[in-house]
């Protein structure tokens, strides 16, 4: 069983993702949170194998949570889930120890395959998402 923690602020997305992933025989969603700053306390209790973290969430967001997880629960692998690449996201995700950088709208089957690969020690990056976030990152006008 792959034990998953899901952090996503948008309730509709979180609900659908949890329901879809739970349908996979070898995946169990053991915890759901809606804020970045509740990831750690929840993870310490639920002891997930993988944390799926949205980036844009209240309470510090997924990137900060990823960083914190690395020291608080080093056994937990971090996968960033997002919709669009923004400036520097890929780089920051990797710096904070994430081993996956994936699309939220990926079919559940593909997401499940990615989670299995991550559990097998591979890194999984969606190339289009990554390219998009790099493109913006190289532009000097990016910062709002």
């Amino acid at each position, binding site marked *: 069983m792959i034990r998953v923690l899901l952090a996503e602020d948008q309730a*509709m997305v979180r609900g*659908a993702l949890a329901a879809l992933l739970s349908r996979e025989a070898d995946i169990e969603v053991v915890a759901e949170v809606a804020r970045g700053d509740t990831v750690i306390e929840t993870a310490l209790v639920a002891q997930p194998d993988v944390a799926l973290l949205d980036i844009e969430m209240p309470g510090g967001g997924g990137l900060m949570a990823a960083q914190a997880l690395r020291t608080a629960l080093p056994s937990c692998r971090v996968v960033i889930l997002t*919709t669009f690449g923004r400036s520097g996201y890929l780089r920051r995700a990797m710096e904070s120890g994430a081993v996956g950088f994936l699309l*939220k709208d990926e079919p559940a089957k593909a997401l499940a395959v990615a989670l299995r690969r991550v559990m097998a020690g591979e890194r999984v990056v969606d190339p289009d998402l990554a390219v998009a976030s790099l493109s913006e990152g190289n532009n000097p006008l990016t910062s709002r």
Partner: protein
Amino acid sequence: VRGLGLDMIGVSRMGSAIRELHTARQTLARMKVEEERLRLARDLHDLLGQTLSVITLKSELARNLITEDPARCARELAEIEQVGRTTLREVRKTVAGYRQPQLSSELDSARQLLEAAGIEHSIEELHEELPQPLDAVLAWTVREGITNVIRHGRARRCLLNFVRERERISIEIFNDRQRAEDIAEQYTDRGNGLAGLQERVSNLGGSMEAGPLTLSGKQHFRLRVELPTQPTVLQEDGQ
């Protein structure tokens, strides 16, 4: 000979200044375009990313629930529908916002239009950045006013001026009219250009006047819009 030499230096300096400005001009144009692209791209991201991922995920889920849990399937579908509809409305608003005219480019167009129509003109430039809603309403005034001058005025001359006061700004578009007898026939209020403008102006707490006017014995038409620059009711004005 010596003079000529110095002149030559001047010329060569001019050459390099021109080259430099040429580059600067290109860079600036590129940057502005880029900026605009990014701004829209970002708005687009925010609006769409969430909506479309919700829709995509929910439809995948609903598909798995058709026989298993038809009631929940129906709920998911109702939500998809609602999200789709709300976003559609927002896309329309966003796009309308981007089609908002800009005063500076409307003034340019006004000059070109009057030029093309063979109407002598003097169009004042406004050297001030105004808040977007104000800028937009002034731009609409120019667009509607100048269109009217060309369409109804049979004008030979057209003037466009701004008056800037401490807490208000006004714009005036004047034109003469070829024949006095046209007036009664023409100012019939039948169009909706001015009525629409009146509405936009009122939304910002401003006032508008439009009508014939006799100046030193000659018939003119004047459109005047006055707007508070610190308005009490400052609403975004869509198109």
